[in-house]
């Protein structure tokens, strides 16, 4: 295999050394992944796995990719967001620990920071297109775009034609239809063959999981899926603690505005919204929550936040962050009523929470790019707002996303899920599954030592008293942590 040149398209392979240095530092902060590498060094449970990954191509993801490879898998990768790639990470993964920029020996990666939508879907297709007509046999997805392309591709091939896009469709959908039109012309069974080889997908995030459950309900899901997002050590950690860390990092790097004393609105009080609210409150902003779910709204109120409607605070707040997973949360009309130099950003997975295209269509509006991913939009009356990362998730666009330690927790779930689906395929029928609680607990266990946590052990008598095994699992499945 070393003789084959590594296919790739990244920004600049000369960044590999910087990337490798950062990967080395990240490895220390990702004890779960490193423990798995050690544990499975001999058995290589992912030998013969061909994994296509669609997940933010960051330094932490590089450690994930190299862990999958260390466990025996062949891997091809694309990012799942046009802005989230760290070019030095992509370069280092392509070059690999033993290669050089002139002789890359790592993993094929198709990702760079600042892809166009066309380039983005081209990259996703490349990650799914393996040599010799072998497709991937495993998907590792974040947001579900790889899964979507395979499913839509197979659907189009079954129908024999690509539907006409209409002007009302989002731009991105028209791009996807374009990709499918080209592939249908080149190979009318490409996606059907790929879908047929895939044993399963492990999905990283809420949005992608939501899509999977929809497909399972409609009966269109073509292979089993593990919902990694709803592992406790993923959603309760990555979503909450990761966003708590990276939200203010993104806002600070983008604007260097003093957050203390400002009024900040967080739309959505799920796990992400909770982390965001704590993050801004920790900087002593006055945080206001908007919610549609009475339970989350009550939680926010009991946590001491003012819960308002966006309309009622739109002209007062200094910072707006969307964290809903829903669309059309902040409209162009909302933005036109915001205070001068209000900061607007999104930390939800997709860029449809804030209506950026609607903003661009307002008569007389001008866009002044302050620096990459920081745009000032100037309204005809002269007042302006500052939009971060064009409404895409700002913690990745303006900062470096979640820190390594949090991602170690998430990605250890991913690796365990890949091992489960690949080695115990028959245990996972078509449908969407969550990881067994014991594996969830195991992920947590693997991170305790690094933080100096000394866990207390149940005695046999205590375990019997509450009716659990000494070694776990300790909580019933419905326990909410």
């Amino acid at each position, binding site marked *: 295999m070393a003789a084959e040149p590594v296919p790739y398209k990244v920004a600049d392979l000369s960044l590999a050394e910087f990337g490798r240095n950062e990967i080395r530092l990240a490895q220390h902060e990702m004890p779960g992944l490193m423990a798995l590498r050690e544990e499975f060094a001999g058995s290589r449970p992912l030998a013969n796995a061909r994994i296509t990954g669609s997940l933010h191509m960051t330094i932490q993801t590089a450690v994930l990719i190299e862990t999958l490879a260390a466990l025996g898998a062949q891997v091809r990768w694309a990012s799942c967001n046009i802005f989230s790639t760290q070019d030095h990470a992509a370069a280092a993964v392509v070059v690999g620990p033993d290669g050089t920029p002139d002789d890359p020996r790592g993993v094929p990666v198709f990702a760079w920071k600042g892809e166009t939508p066309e380039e983005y879907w081209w990259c996703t297709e490349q990650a799914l297109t393996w040599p010799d007509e072998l497709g991937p046999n495993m998907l590792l997805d974040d947001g579900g775009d790889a899964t979507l392309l395979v499913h839509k591709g197979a659907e189009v091939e079954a129908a024999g034609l690509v539907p006409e896009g209409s002007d009302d469709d989002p731009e991105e959908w028209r791009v996807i239809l374009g990709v499918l039109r080209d592939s249908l012309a080149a190979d009318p069974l490409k996606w059907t063959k790929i879908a047929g080889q895939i044993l399963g997908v492990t999905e990283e995030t809420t949005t992608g999981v939501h899509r999977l459950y929809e497909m399972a309900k409609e009966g269109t899901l073509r292979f089993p899926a593990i919902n990694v997002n709803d592992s406790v050590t993923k959603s309760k950690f990555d979503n909450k603690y990761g966003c708590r860390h990276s939200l203010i990092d993104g806002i600070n790097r983008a604007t260097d505005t003093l957050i*203390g004393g400002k009024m900040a609105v967080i739309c959505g009080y799920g796990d992400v919204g909770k982390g965001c609210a704590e993050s801004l409150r920790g*900087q002593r902003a*006055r945080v206001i929550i908007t919610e549609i779910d009475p339970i989350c709204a009550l939680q926010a109120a009991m946590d*001491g936040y003012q819960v308002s409607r966006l309309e009622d605070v739109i002209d007062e707040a200094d910072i707006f962050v969307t964290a809903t997973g829903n669309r059309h949360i902040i409209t162009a009309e909302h933005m036109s009523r915001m205070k001068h130099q209000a900061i607007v950003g999104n930390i939800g997975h997709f860029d449809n929470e804030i209506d950026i295209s609607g903003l661009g269509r307002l008569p007389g509006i001008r866009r002044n790019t302050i620096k990459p991913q920081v745009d000032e939009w100037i309204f005809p009356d002269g007042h302006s707002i500052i939009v971060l990362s064009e409404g895409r998730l700002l913690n990745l666009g303006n900062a470096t996303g979640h820190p390594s330690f949090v991602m170690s927790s998430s990605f250890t779930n991913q690796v365990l899920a890949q091992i489960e689906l690949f080695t115990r395929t028959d245990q996972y029928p078509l449908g969407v599954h969550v990881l067994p609680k014991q594996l969830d607990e195991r992920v947590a266990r693997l991170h305790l030592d690094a933080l100096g946590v000394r866990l207390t052990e149940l005695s046999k008598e205590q375990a019997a008293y509450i009716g659990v095994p000494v070694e776990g699992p300790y909580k019933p499945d419905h326990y909410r942590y």
Partner: protein
Amino acid sequence: MIAPEGRFGSDIADPELAEAGLARIAWAERAMPVLGLLREECASKQPFAGRSIAACLHITAETAILAGVLTAGGGRVHLAASNPLSTQDDIAAALASQPGVFVNARTGVDRDTYYAHLHRTLDGAPDLVVDDGGDLVNTLHAERPELLPAVVGGCESTSTGVARLRRMAAAGSLAFPVVAADVSVTRRMFDNGYGTSQSVIDGLLRATNILLAGKTVVVAGYGSSGSAIAERAAGLGAQVIITEVDPVRALDAIMRGHRVLPMAEAAPAGDVFITATGSRDVITGEHLAAMRDGAVLANAGHFDVEIDVRALADLAVQVNRGIRPHADEYVLASGSRLILLADGRVVNLIAAEGNPAAVMDLSFAAQALALMWLISGEAALPAGVHPMPTAIDTEVARLTLAAHGTRIDELTAAQREYLASWRDGS
């Protein structure tokens, strides 16, 4: 009732309560190791031998321990209550049972009796005075000027009292030096910052049993007490609104993430109102009329003038007294029911137990050290209001750390030299 030592007497509610009071004093003593250390020092050095000390303080277990330090040092202590509602009768009885202590304090006395008690306290012909709010010093100057020449000096605990004394000093009326104990670092930090805030929340909870999470708490005044009350309310899950008159304090509140509004706008938004300004008419009839049904009103300031209780009574069409201990319900014509705690008097002392003993330990230790310093003659201060000397503050902190068993680093000679030098730069 005449005490064994002759002409001085105590006026207390019920001497039978002494045993219960002594048990509570013993409990408080465990949390007051600094005064314990000072009592040992006083017992051996007798700094107050033959001296008379008049003190007007809240009659609580902590005050009893301060009195114990002064009597251990050879002093005779005459105590009056600094607030007619804050007297704990069992403590008063316990104190009155001790040699060298005379107590004139009963809970719930009227204004005439309150001042009569101050006079009986001054009958002890004080060498030193300890005041809390300024009533004792004021009465001494206004009505007992013949006693003034003998007074060496005094201490005042509260910001309210210190402000009064400053006005007296400015008018040339203050006859002796008074150490302002309210501005010492240890006092600000522990008393207002940790003590008052905890006990105000305690008083609020005891009187109402209200869940603070999800509620909007309006704190009037963002001084050392108000800011700490705000922090605690937020810590319990409340949204906090601050009202202020000082732009610097208001900015501090904003930068700590609180909302700042004028009281007129806060009035309809709050579930709980806590005044901590030291000023008067902070919550007026107009504000009260705008409040929501069920709003709770509490005052943490020294005097009962922050909430306009008379206006509340005028607005009310019905008053249901004592719906819970220390909680009265005022029904307005609109049908709104407003809950006033502790008659608008200092809620942490009336509905709860005042500052925890550990906080008062520091506060009173500083005052005991200040009294020792004044009576030693080393102070040699002119008449007027004087700040607590830094040396006493440092000593209090040192004793407290020693009592906690906390060890700290010492500057090295090289560090001292470096810090004293202006020559070293980048």
